[in-house]
Structure formats: C-alpha cells, structure tokens
C-alpha cells in the first residue's frame, strides 16, 4: 500500500485502501488511492495535465467573461429601467427556461466542434445567475440612499459608483459563485461530447483505454479547480463586505 494522496482523496482513502486490501473492491472498478496518485503524477510529469488545464481554464475564463459581461450588463439595465424590464426580461425568462446543456447538438451544428461552441455554451449558462442576481441586487438598493444622493447633488455616475455598485456587489458575487459552478459543469459536459483537448478530453480518452485511475484523477482535478475558483470569489466577497466588520 502506497502513501495516501493528500486533500480530497485523503478523506476517502482510509476506507478505500482498506477495501482494496481485503479485495472487496476490484482494482478495475475503483483503483487504490495510490494508483490514482500515480496516474496524476504521470499526467503532471508528461505535461498533459498542464496542457489540459490551460485549455479548459481558457474556455471557462472566456465563457465567464462573455456571459458575465452580458448577464451583469443586462441585469443592470433591467434593474435600473422599467423600459428594459418590459423589453428584455420576458425574452430572458423564455431563454432561461431552456436547459442550456440541451443546446449542445444545436451548437455543434451552428458553430462546429472548435472552441466557439464550448465558450458560447459556458457563456450562456453563466449569464443567467448573474443576470438574475444583478437585477434583484439593484432593485434592493435602499431608496433612502438615492434620496440622500439627490439632496447631495450626485450625478448619475456618482450614484452608480457610490450607491449601486457597492450595495449590489455582495449579491452579484453570490451570482458569480453560482456562475462558476455552472461554468465548470457546462464545460465538463461539453468537453466530453466533443473535444480534442482539455480535461474532459483527458477523461474521455482515458475511458477508451480503460484507465479508470486517470478518469478519477480528472474528476478530482475538476473538483479542485471548482473549489479553488470558488475560494477566489469568497475572498472578493470578504473584501466587498469588509465595512461590516
């Protein structure tokens, strides 16, 4: 029995390793933690993990930026203006009712199998939590602060900077956290259906070679990047709320 891998694998490694030793769990169903760790080291050493992470990371980042921009911009417009609420919100609600992962076949036909459909799919999934949270965050800004701003003679941009952004920030960041989870989920699905690089491809490729250790390692990587990106947003949340200390 090798050294238990640290972190997440470590939580289940004890009983899992015990299961392996007593041969209750066959190696070709669930490999021992030590073998998963070895597969990970193999992928790190031959550079496949770094390549796959870079590709998947860029897809998520581009999708987040595009979808985040759209979601926040539309949410802000709808939150600030009844006219936008009447014109933009109904079609948004209709599109939201579509399961965005169900659009994959359509996106493949429309945009091919390159990077574009994956980024667009992530963007689509990401935009709704941000849209909804931004919209409701702006509607919940204390109207008394707007009245105060009127007495003080604030311009629209001063009101935006001094009232709207700081008071909406905590809830928008909750939207960012939901969006991040959806971004990684969308990417996992999109990468397993058609991809020639990325973590999803790594996992899918491993399936063809019956490398369960690599599949499980890939899943752990997904979980870790999910936790890592969420931690970054939680740091931003604490910063945005430091005045409540």
């Amino acid at each position, binding site marked *: 029995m090798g050294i238990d891998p640290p972190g997440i694998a470590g939580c289940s490694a004890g009983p899992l390793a015990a299961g392996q030793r007593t041969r209750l769990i066959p190696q070709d169903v669930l490999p021992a933690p030590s073998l998963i760790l070895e597969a990970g080291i193999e992928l790190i050493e031959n550079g496949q993990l770094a390549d796959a992470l870079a590709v998947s990371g860029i897809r998520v980042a581009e999708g987040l930026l595009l979808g985040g921009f759209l979601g926040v911009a539309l949410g802000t417009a709808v939150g600030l203006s009844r006219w936008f609420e009447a014109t933009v919100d109904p079609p948004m609600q209709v599109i939201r009712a579509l399961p965005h992962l169900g659009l994959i076949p359509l996106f493949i036909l429309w945009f091919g199998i390159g990077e574009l459909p994956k980024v667009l799919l992530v963007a689509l999934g990401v935009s709704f939590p941000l849209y909804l949270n931004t919209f409701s965050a702006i509607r919940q800004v204390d109207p008394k*602060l707007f009245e105060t701003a009127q*007495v*003080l*003679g604030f311009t629209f941009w*001063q009101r935006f900077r*001094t009232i709207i952004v700081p*008071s909406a920030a905590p809830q928008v960041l909750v939207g960012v956290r939901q969006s991040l989870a959806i971004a990684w989920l969308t990417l996992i699905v999109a990468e397993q259906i058609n991809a020639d690089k990325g973590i999803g491809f790594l996992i899918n490729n491993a399936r063809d070679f019956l490398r369960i250790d690599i599949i499980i390692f890939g899943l752990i990587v997904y979980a870790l990047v999910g936790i890592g990106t969420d931690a970054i947003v939680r740091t931003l949340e604490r910063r945005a709320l430091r005045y409540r200390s």
Partner: protein
Amino acid sequence: MTIAAERQTAVAGELRHVNKWYGAHHVLTDVSLRVARGEIVALIGRSGSGKSTVLRLLAGLSTDHAGDRVVSGAPALAFQEPRLFPWRDVRTNVAYGLTRSRLTRSEAQTRADRALADVGLADHAEVWPLTLSGGQAQRVSLARALVAEPELLLLDEPFGALDALTRLSMRGLLLDLWREHRFGVLLVTHDVDEAVASADRVLVLEAGRVVHTLTIDEPRQSPGAHTASYRAALLDKLGVQI
C-alpha cells in the same frame, strides 16, 4: 426696508402660498413660511400633517407643487436616520456634502476633517460608519450637512431616534454650531419641548395648513417664565389634553 434691515433678515428659505396634491389628496393648503438666516423655526404637527412634505419641498426633493419656493443656495438636509454610505469611511461620507462645490479631493477632505472636528469626531475620520454609535452617526450626518456651509439647514426629526441623553447633547451641539455659523434652520419635530427649547418661532401644521404661529421670546435651552405656557399652548393646538 433699508438694505441693512434686509440683510439682517436675508431669507434662507421661503414658501409662498404653496399647494400640493398627491392625486386627489390635498396635502398642503396655502402654506407660507419663511426662515431667515440666523433664525431657527420649528415645524410641529401630528403624523400625516404634512411636515415632511414641507421639508421635502424646501429641500427640492419634490417639485410638482403650486406656489413659490425660494431657497438661498443649496439647502442641506439631515434625516431622522443618519443615512451614511456604510461602504465609505466617515471622512469620505462627510466630504460627499461638498459634491456640489466641485473642490479637489484633498480640499474636500481637509474641509471634511474640519467639519468632523466641529462635531467632536476628529479622531473617527477613518472608521467605517457601522462601527459608530447612533449619536456618533447622527453627528457625522450633521457634519455632512454643514460641511458646505449652507444658508438653510433642514432637519427632519434629526434626534428622534436617539436616546434622551444623547438627544440633549445633540441639541446643544446643534445650537453651538448654529451660533457659530448663523445658518437658518427649519426643524421638523413632533417634540414640543424640543421646539420650545431651540426655536425662535414655532409653526403648528394641521392637515396641511399652518394653523398657528408662536414666537418664543425666551433664551434658548434655559426654561424661562413662559416656557410652561408656550408648551401648554402648543399642546392645546395639537389637540393634546393634559
């Protein structure tokens, strides 16, 4: 009127024959009032008598009314709650009172620090508003209102949410600042004792009309021979049986 007399009674804020409706509801009926510079006028009335509407009108927060509104410069308004921006430090909050003055950032901060010193909070310039006590926050709100040296200060039950002791010291602070800067004050309150103790004149508002004006001819803050009768007269006008 001579020029000297005119300057002495230079108007800080004035309403002439103002009427206002909310839909079919006539909320202000022929209201005329005048606050001169260096004068404190209290406006008392029951809830729903239109006090806040008068104040909002003078502050420029509500515009659709009939009649004339004359205000010298930009009036300052302090609300019942401090209404500070919690995500900006105290100094920045006070400096927002200078938004219309178009000063540089450092000039605004210098003046904000001076205003904070005036209200006794010089050492709180860099703290978050949520760490202040109710009285301290209300003093910051007062500093923000006064930092631009307005000619008219509008106060909407500014001490109503404070405990009795803090309220007394806030009233003392307000009068000190007023003696120094001589702005005109319109104090909206439902506290008869506060009105008698601080105002030159007390107007009683009832159902949107000024039904009574009482001139207080006594030194401020110290009860005199007439204090009890002023108090009784105002309570009577407000329909309070004691």
